[in-house]
């Protein structure tokens, strides 16, 4: 029962997050980039989440930041999953092959394993340093970081499916290797990758926020959770908790909601 409640809360929460992201400009009572009142006002009827040290409305900023962070996360997760699946399929199907393709596939498998040990935040830092701190750079960098995670997962699944008799049967019937992969292997390996998207979502949100927190993320004054928390941290150490607490809470709840929502799919599919 309690697990069920958790899942439905997640589904509702994830829906809410998406709605907020979609309609952020309509929801924000103030311009998130302009001074809306005196600095460091406590939360009140006028400013629901208070104002920060620059006098910006924290609620409006949080709402607009949700739009940006969720947009980046959704884009990166979808792109990384699509690319990762393709790479994982290519590696898994060719890994035991002879010749150049086999060698390449094995090297790809090792590389995907290795990338797991690379500090993602530092990769993001280098990317921003080399190509500039635009949302596009950050999106591309995160896709590059996330893609091997999916590729690795899909590859493991492919290795399990690859020996199945129905594949040999299809080959005998003259199905081309590409068609075989798409029609017969992909449907069997896609499920774990789809479920894993919730993990990628969390990582993506964390990375965007971490870069923002370091001050090298999406350039100010565009509202972003990590940058807001970073500025709010200074206020928090002086006892003004609200500029940091609200974006922080929303960030955590967003990831939790998406994770819980995905566990609904997991349970729903298993029952069938």
């Amino acid at each position, binding site marked *: 029962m309690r697990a069920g409640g*958790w899942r439905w809360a997640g589904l509702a929460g994830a829906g809410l997050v998406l709605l907020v992201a979609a309609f952020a400009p309509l929801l924000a009572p103030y311009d998130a980039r302009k001074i809306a009142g005196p600095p460091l006002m406590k939360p009140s009827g006028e400013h629901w989440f208070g104002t920060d040290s620059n006098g910006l409305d924290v609620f409006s900023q949080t709402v607009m930041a949700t739009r940006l962070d969720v947009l980046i996360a959704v884009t990166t997760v979808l792109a990384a999953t699509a690319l990762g699946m393709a790479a994982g399929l290519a590696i898994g199907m060719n890994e035991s092959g002879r010749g150049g393709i086999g060698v390449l596939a094995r090297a790809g498998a090792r590389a995907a*394993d*290795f990338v*797991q*040990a*690379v*500090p*993602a*935040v*530092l*990769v993001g*830092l*280098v990317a*921003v*340093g*080399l*190509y500039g*701190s635009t949302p596009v750079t950050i999106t591309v960098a995160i896709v590059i970081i996330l893609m091997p995670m999916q590729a690795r997962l899909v590859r493991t699944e492919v290795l399990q499916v690859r020996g199945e008799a129905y594949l040999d049967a299809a080959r005998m019937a003259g199905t081309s290797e590409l068609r075989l992969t798409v029609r017969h292997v992909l449907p069997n390996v896609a499920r774990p990758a789809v479920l894993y998207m919730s*993990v990628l979502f*969390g*990582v993506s949100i*964390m990375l965007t*926020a*971490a870069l923002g*927190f*370091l*001050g*090298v993320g999406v350039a100010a004054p565009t509202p972003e959770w*990590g940058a807001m*928390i*970073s500025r*709010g*941290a200074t206020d*928090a*150490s*002086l*006892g003004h*908790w609200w500029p*940091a*607490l609200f974006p*922080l809470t929303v*960030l*955590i709840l967003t*990831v*939790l909601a998406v*994770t819980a929502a995905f566990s609904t799919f997991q349970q729903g599919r298993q029952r069938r």
Partner: protein
Amino acid sequence: MRPWLHHNGWWLRRLLLLPVHLLVFALVAFALVRTIPGDPVLVVTGNQISDDQYADVQRRLGLDGSLAHQAGEYFGRLLRLDLGDSLITGRSVTEEFGSRLPQTLELAALGLSVSLVVVLALSAVVLLRPRGVISRLAMAYARSAGAIPEFAVAVAGIFVFYASLHWLPSPLGRLGPDDPVPTPVTRFPLLDAVLTGNPQVVGSMLLHLVLPVFAMVVANSAVLLRLLCSQLEVELARPATRFRISTGAPRWVVLASIYRRALPATVTMSGTLFGYMVGGAVVLEGLFGFGGMGQYLTDAVTSADLTALQGLLVVIAAVSLVVFLLVDLINMALDPRRRPGSGGAA
């Protein structure tokens, strides 16, 4: 000699691959810097420079002459562990990293060690007392995996334990204002403090480390805990476990048997987590006023310090490769079937 080689070949071979891998990634770093949009020289300097200055900057960035010449210079210096001098600060990148990297790595290593201890302890409780209060709390926490960033915990921690309760020292460095700075021996701050042997300094440093390490542990242990518990569950249900129990093997032997089979996935994940923790340490250093890679890197990024960034790539690759190597070796030690040439599961 021959039998020794035969028994130890698995890790020796793995060790010998390290320089090869490093070379590949150095090449990647070399290539990446040459793919940035626009003229790197102008990116670094801005537009207003004379031709002489241009040639000078180009030479100092290692971008003069043919590509082969550039590569020769680059790898030649790399062999001497010379990552070049920063154009922005004028200081040697190798030296900067040499003094800063150990601080960051120590913080990350502390985070991972504490996290592993906590996760091992909690997983044992979940395994042995699945219905207890601790187990329920632990599993509820495990569900939050990946949802809590370390800087969130740290900011909340600073607000509660420093700003409100004053239980912990101010987040303004590794030591209090009156504490003597230990002489750098290894450049790992805590290790140096311990080596210096001044208990007051060690105590102060530990107190200053409580919050950042706590933040890293809270943020990262859930993933590890969830993974280990699910693996333990899988291994627990196996006939091999039941056979051990049924033959009356002592309880600790049964536990060791389950853990040894369940751990490899956790070890692999720890490698990933160490990477996250290095990133987390970089983020936290600014918040707690620690010297380390954090400030240096953000400066390098904002000022487009190409030499530093190129050096950073090589250093990231080196650190990651060593972690990757350790993960492989530990897993091969835990599960002999993973050793190359062992014939697999047969």
